[in-house]
């Protein structure tokens, strides 16, 4: 029986889609059967981040409306045969789907997959309600900024009200140099405000931008962000993984080494 996980944040642009793509790919790397569902109807992105846009024939709304079978709409990932994507529709809007329909869909997919990851749209309206409808647990993504943390707090409140049993926090785009200078909240500060369990901290890494543009999730690569996402995937399946030292690559030696590598 699979587990349905919703990745949400409230605020836009904090990295829900990037996190969904990387964590999902990470879980697939750990030999789990995974399906990613893009619930952002009308503003689909996950297919682009996964580099699967050109394979879309049917989408989520087609499945819900019965224009095709689920199997026909699921896109097999080009790298991992046990990873699938159910893309969202671009020409429709959030009202094309109801929470009941999403719950039914999630329950059907539960039979066949180990993990079902829902990429939630920004906001707290219909799209959010659709995305959380069938979920067992939630990953709340927030950047260490007051605005994002404020929205995350609101979201956590709504998740609690909708009886989702487990909520974990991902602090994304942390810059340890700024934290050291006292110019940015640390992950501890964010955890203190939100009072939920932390499941991972992802550093601000320019490799993320590169990987997103290329449609190749970087999870598991030797970049800091790649390792951070891999650790989150491991923690999701229940492994105990120590937290990364985000300063690791800031040392003089490794800086020199990376400079040499580039040349």
């Amino acid at each position: 029986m699979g587990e349905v996980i919703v990745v949400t944040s409230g605020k836009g642009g904090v990295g829900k889609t990037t996190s969904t793509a990387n964590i999902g790919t990470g879980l697939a790397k750990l030999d789990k059967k995974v399906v990613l569902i893009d619930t952002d109807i009308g503003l689909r992105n996950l297919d682009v981040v996964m580099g699967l846009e050109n394979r879309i024939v049917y989408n989520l709304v087609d499945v819900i409306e019965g224009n095709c079978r689920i199997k026909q709409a699921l896109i097999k990932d080009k790298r991992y045969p046990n990873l699938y994507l159910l893309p969202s529709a671009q020409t429709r809007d959030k009202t094309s789907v109801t929470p009941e329909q999403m719950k039914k869909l999630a329950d059907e997919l539960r039979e066949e997959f180990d993990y079902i990851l829902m990429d939630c749209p920004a906001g707290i309206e219909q799209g959010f309600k659709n995305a959380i409808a069938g979920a067992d647990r939630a990953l709340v993504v927030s950047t260490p900024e007051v605005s994002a943390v404020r929205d995350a707090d609101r979201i956590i409140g709504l998740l609690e009200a909708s009886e989702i049993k487990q909520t974990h926090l991902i602090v994304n785009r942390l810059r340890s140099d700024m934290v050291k200078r006292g110019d940015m909240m640390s992950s501890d500060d964010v955890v203190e405000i939100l009072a939920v369990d932390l499941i991972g901290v992802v550093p601000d890494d320019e490799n993320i931008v590169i990987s997103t543009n290329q449609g190749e999730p970087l999870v598991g690569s030797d970049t800091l962000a790649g390792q951070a996402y891999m650790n989150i995937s491991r923690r999701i399946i229940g492994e105990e993984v120590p937290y990364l030292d985000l300063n690791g690559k800031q040392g003089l030696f490794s800086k020199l080494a990376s400079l040499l590598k580039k040349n």
Partner: protein
Amino acid sequence: MNNPVIIKGNKYGIVVVLDDLMKFDELKEKIAEKFRDSSKFFSKAQMAVSFEGRKLSNEEQREILDIIAEETELHVVCVIEDDPQKEAVFKKALDEKLMELSNATGQFYKGNLRSGQVLESETSIIVIGDVNPGARIVSKGNIIVLGSLKGTVFAGATGNTNSFVVSLDMNPVQIRIADTIARSPDKPIKEEKKETKIAFLEDGNIYIETLNKEVLNDINL
């Protein structure tokens, strides 16, 4: 059946429901009787007629039409057939003709198509502008994009395998022609220079080629 001839009608025509078992000569009598009785009602109307309930030969149909002409002042404009086989033949012929038409006639659309926008056309379509990723064009005929094509296009949507797609800058996410789908390469190819290209269907594969004289000669509208 206690009523071997039933006449049903609407504003534009009548349906004559005939008994299947009765001998034809007997039936003719009944038909004559029925129409005689209702000739006042029909007076000089112009109508279409169709026959149901009994398979009629051309000869028999002729005879019945004669009876109607004799007994009433009704003017039968045409007889509508209720034969699924013939209907299929007509449908096929009409579809083929319409397909040819949709390939040979066209509409214009001026403007850029952005993500989420869909342009659907019964005929061929000429877009003066760009088609961005996430936008979609569906046409029963050909698709010509005077701009860059970076979205999804579906030519020959009703199954016309002769349909083609032309663009000044051919970079689509997906091309469909009739029942065949082609997708863009996963690794983007560094484009040498922008060239007008044509996508067409041949032996179940979609080919994209530079639009030159030889290719032009192969196009049939």
